[in-house]
């Protein structure tokens, strides 16, 4: 069975240096209530940082692209949309 949320964490240098490093811990800190619904996949650069006024780090959750992403923002989003 495929999981409900597919989370791609941009691992491009821009996202990584501007706050994305912390995102790599997402898989380890998913709360139990949503853990089974989430699949975390690594991703190369999502190419969002090239847009003007881009706000890295970026994370893509299914079709939704989150800017200024953080661990809590991702977890909150998933809880809201499940």
């Amino acid at each position, binding site marked *: 069975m495929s999981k409900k949320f597919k989370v791609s964490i941009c*691992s491009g*240098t821009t996202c*990584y*240096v*501007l706050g994305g*490093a*912390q995102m*790599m811990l997402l898989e380890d800190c998913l709360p139990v209530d949503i853990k089974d619904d989430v699949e975390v996949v690594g991703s190369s650069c999502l190419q969002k940082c090239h847009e003007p006024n881009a706000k890295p780090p970026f994370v893509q959750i299914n079709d939704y692209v989150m800017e200024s992403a953080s661990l809590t923002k991702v977890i909150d989003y998933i809880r809201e949309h499940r």
Partner: protein
Amino acid sequence: MNYINNAAIIKRQVMVRLAKLIFDDTLKDNIDLIPVLMTPKNSESVRCCIHHDRAVLKSRVKVLLGFTAASDTQADEVKLLKEYAGDAEQQGEDRFDDRILTVIDDACSACIRAKYQVTNACRGCVARPCIMNCPKKAIRFERGHAIIDENLCVSCGICEKVCPYHAIVYQPIPCEEACPVNAISKDEFGKEKIDPQKCVYCGKCMLACPFGAIMERSEMFDILRDIKNRDKMTVAMVAPSIAGQFNTDFGKIVSALKKLGFDKVVEVAYGADITAQKETEEFIERLGHKQTLMTSSCCPAYVQIIKKHIPSMRSYVSDTYSPMIYTGEWVSNQWPGAARVFIGPCVAKRFEARESAYVDNVMTYEELGSILIAAGVDVVECDDQEPDKSASIIGRGFAVSGGVSNAVLASAASRGVNAVGKPINGINNKTVSLLKVLDKTIKEPAFIEVMTCEGGCLNGPGVTSSPVVAKKFLDKMLK
């Protein structure tokens, strides 16, 4: 622990913008626009208004150009950033001194002096043990609540202990609390000042300040000038803790550095191999002379702590040079005349490099990351390359607490010399007290490794990665 926070991200954003202008050769035309572009008209301000934000950003650019944040004269206060850029070009190395860290007055929030505060959990009780027990009569009663007079309070903490409702809380001044040697304190206006006589350049205050008011004076202006100059050879000497700083393997980081303009990339772990070997020899020789204790010397902040604060321990510190110095020496012989840039997680290395003839400049991973962004180099998309000088896994292990002592103790044991040594992992007030009496508490032969940052260099003040993530990559390299 090094947590990601908004103040750190803003600092990196400024670094990216500055580096971009240097790469594009438009520094003098556009440098004064940086504060305005980052806080445009009608944007949301972080401080009281965008003008305050802009003033702080201007100071940040100034510090990134290598100057202190202080404006000594009125002329300094109105001086444009492009004039500072001109000064940086003209003065070169001469603009640096022993003030490695600097406080941006406009950013410092002048945290209240008293470290204890009465919260609204105060019920205005009849017993009032806080007032009765305060030795300085600093607490008065107003509108049903106890109030602490911050000018009288000496932060003894008695009121916090005696309050039956736990209504009084301890609220530290983050930078002062983080400094292990009391080098930072308030001036008459409540702003923090760093005493260069006492500062050991550990960078803990810089990480602790929630306003990002403390910065290290960057050398990126000089480094970028050198890597842009195709006639000058530049060598990147990368510390072993670089593993995992960019969420990818070391080989890709090597080729990213070359793309950036470095001609050669050398592992400082190579110098760590030499340090391990020489330190073992020195240790065995010292034991032969009836000494029992020797400590490591590769952490420059620790060396400064001993020099400035615990001189009685000085003879126990190893005379062996640090991995950075041995690597710099090798590079100097290999490529005479090349610009030698140490890339690491460390603030104190800046001072060590300034005192050495073998290293020209120092930059942190945070600065490197920002420069990579500015140059449009994505590390993950680079191909794997071998460094121009690589090292053994022993030297690479120096990046984590215990790495040095494991190397020295194992190598001594293989030569029939047995000794003990529990590393001192992280400097704080407690470990400073421990160091003061270390020579009196050690009875059997011991080699003590001391790392100022808890966990080792992986958790240094200039890292980009969470130490947990970086450790995973380093472990891979140590296999």
